[in-house]
């Protein structure tokens, strides 16, 4: 039991926002390749609790994805999968 709990603790460990960790990483609506990491296969934006982004950068990503969608650089939905 004890061991299981410990393992679980490791699993739930707080993720670090990748944009806070790496200041050089830019969030750009013109670069859908990097944004693709933050949407599901169906094209939905991955929530913060899963992606581990901080609020500030999640906001920026969301805005960038929405802009990219408007310009048809990214899909609104993807039915193929």
């Amino acid at each position, binding site marked *: 039991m004890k061991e299981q709990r410990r393992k679980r603790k490791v699993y739930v460990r707080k993720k670090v926002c990748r944009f806070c960790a790496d200041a050089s990483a830019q969030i750009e609506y013109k670069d*859908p390749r990097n944004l693709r990491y933050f949407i599901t296969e169906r094209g939905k934006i991955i929530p913060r609790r899963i992606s581990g982004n901080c609020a500030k950068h999640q906001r920026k990503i969301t805005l960038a994805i929405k*802009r990219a*969608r*408007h*310009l*048809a650089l*990214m*899909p*609104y939905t993807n039915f193929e999968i």
Partner: protein
Amino acid sequence: MRIRRYETVFILEPDIEESRRKETLERLETIIQKGGGILVKRDDWGIRKLAYDIGRFSKGHYFLYDFAGPSLAVSEVERHLRMFEVVLRFLTVKKEDQVSLEAMEKVRAEEQEKEEARRMALQQRREAEAPPVKVEEAATKVDVEEEEEEEEQEEVKGEGDEESTDAEEEEGEDLE
């Protein structure tokens, strides 16, 4: 009047004639100038596949205009983009909240220099890649020489269209 720096991306229909495309772009540029702005950089992303169909199109020709000007210039540009029938989509984003036109002139000059340097590098690389092709095509040497002459003529023009040189190189490969 407050001058801001903006960035407009727009998508044109992919299959319109060259002349019509040029006319549209030129008109947009004059609109920016008339609105009291200057065009800092013009970027052609080329024809890309759209993430979803827009109307009957699955591909689009993307352009990016980086310009500085008063808000009036933006509303004029957007009004015209809405009117042009060949424009599928557009998006304007504010890049900097306060800039001076003089500073932007400088940035434009720098960008033009960079563009020039990039074109030169591309040309040099092409020239560097050319010799191996010559060796491989020893049998059809006459043809190769003819093609080279054509390429040189384009280089003299300076503004040599990138696309057309590409097409010629592809032809050369087909001959192998």
